[in-house]
């Protein structure tokens, strides 16, 4: 039976939701074992052991693993892969950074961003910004895959009875060091796990207008805030708001696109949303071709009015 090793996404304090989708994907391949690589991350390992269906939780606790530097964690994963058949990581920035380094060290072709497990070594994955879905079969002895979070249900975070086992690796490679992070703190839900998202585009004019128009509606709906690439490039909001082919992939219950024309790169990041609502003054905007509900209107008057009436 295939033994999988799943990368646990965490911040040394708690398990991130992206892990749960990766666990579901891994469970379709075989036994699910986890890796918690971090520093002072014992509580994370304890929490991870409670995820439904989990077997062993490998805990590598070392200052060198605190910030998931690929140069340090890849050799650790490679050594653990001697006793596992598949390395499974969520398509988070850590997963995307680390998995290919592991794959190359194992001389394995990685399967990126899988949408489904079709067989022991067969997967579907999006290409061309999701405009072509490829079914691929690996011929390598071991597998390295990353998992698109929106394509798999989240495993239950409680109910499992995994066992935590300490492991150690070679620690600091001496190649790289972590200098710091600017992580925005927000009271709003996280973009990739929000039930409702309100996104703004270039039409929002500037940072101040974006805040004045989009934030009140988002807050009224308890929604996360997203943005098109154009809005991020123009500096209205930081990069972590970007939804699209190369930004975040989201699939909320409701996605409200405000002043977003609907370039294919943006659609690639949100077209699996359950209901799409679009507000745009251009009635020919491509966003209306995918929207369930559209309103052709000037957003500067319509959005505050909607916010007021909800």
């Amino acid at each position, binding site marked *: 039976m295939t033994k999988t090793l799943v990368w646990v996404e965490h911040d040394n304090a708690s398990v991130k939701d992206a892990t749960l989708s990766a666990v579901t994907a891994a469970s379709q391949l075989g036994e699910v074992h986890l890796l918690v690589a971090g520093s002072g991350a014992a509580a994370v390992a304890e929490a991870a052991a409670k995820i439904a269906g989990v077997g062993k939780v490998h805990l590598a606790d070392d200052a060198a693993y605190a*910030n998931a*530097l*690929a*140069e340090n964690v890849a050799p650790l994963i490679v050594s653990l892969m001697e006793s596992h058949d598949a390395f499974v990581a969520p398509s*988070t*920035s*850590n997963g*995307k*950074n*680390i998995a*290919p380094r592991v*794959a*190359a060290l194992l*001389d*394995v*072709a*990685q399967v*990126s*961003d899988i949408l489904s497990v079709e067989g022991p070594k067969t997967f579907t994955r*999006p*290409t*061309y*910004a999701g*405009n*072509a*879905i490829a*079914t691929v079969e690996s*011929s*390598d002895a071991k597998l390295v895959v990353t998992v698109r979070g929106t394509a798999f249900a989240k495993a239950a975070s409680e109910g499992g009875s995994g066992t935590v086992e300490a492991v150690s690796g070679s620690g600091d490679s001496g190649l*790289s060091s972590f*200098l710091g*992070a600017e992580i*925005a703190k927000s009271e709003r839900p996280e973009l990739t796990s929000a039930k*409702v998202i309100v996104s703004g585009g270039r039409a929002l004019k500037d940072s101040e207008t974006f805040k004045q128009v989009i934030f009140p509606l988002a807050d009224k*709906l308890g929604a996360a805030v997203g943005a098109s*690439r154009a809005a*991020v*490039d123009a500096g209205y909001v*930081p*990069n*972590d708001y970007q939804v699209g082919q*190369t930004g*975040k992939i989201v699939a909320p*219950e*409701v996605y409200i696109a405000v002043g977003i024309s609907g370039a*294919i790169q943006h659609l690639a990041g949100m*077209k699996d949303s359950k209901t799409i*609502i679009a*507000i745009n003054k251009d*009635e020919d905007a491509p966003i209306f*071709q995918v*929207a*369930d*509900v*559209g*309103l*052709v209107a000037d957003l500067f008057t319509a959005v505050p009015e*909607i916010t007021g*009436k*909800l």
Partner: protein
Amino acid sequence: MKILVPVKRVIDYNVKPRVKSDGTGVDLANVKMSMNPFDEIAVEEAIRLKEKGVATEIVAVSVGPAKAQETLRTALAMGADRAILVTTDDEVEPLAVAKILKGIVGEEAPGLVILGKQAIDDDSNQTGQMLAALLGRPQGTFASEVTVEGDSVTVKREVDGGLETVKLSLPAIVTTDLRLNEPRYASLPNIMKAKSKPLANKTPADYGVDTAPRLKTLKVTEPATRQAGVKVADVDALVAKIKELGIA
């Protein structure tokens, strides 16, 4: 310091890809092809480092069909000094590309290799990380700022929660994200000049690399399409719809 910039010829980002009716792939016949947008950012970053006096020479490299020469000429017109074309008509997976690049790095000994983080055709996001692994060198992926100081490079990275900064010892591999810079357009005189810049022709065999695919593509299909829904007349109708969804 020399900088190596790998570039890929891909479908132009403004073209909507069409899946072939026989399900074998995407129809690229008579479709406009361009340099992968993230690779343009990589070329631009290398040029800026040269303009700052950090880099002395920029070598562009492409692995692909003979027509990838056009992509290399674009890089040369932007400001790269010379180019290497590793010609193959096969589809080369990221792992094999990384192996070829490793061979080129062995010959050229660049201080930095700057790549696009992902190609917009296969959307793999692997080659830079794989090259770093094969070389045993550090990687600064998804870069939004690159600063070279002495024997190290500081890379500000776009990550899920915002930005993080890492310091890498040189030589290092950097992959570009969207906000790193805005690539320049090549001027007509530079396009003319690019035609006489050196371009070396190689094959994967020159680097002893087997490009046989490890992943077999069984089929390629169109994604499920969404149908356009209704357009509502006014704000009140939209508010009613939102309330129907039970989110307000």
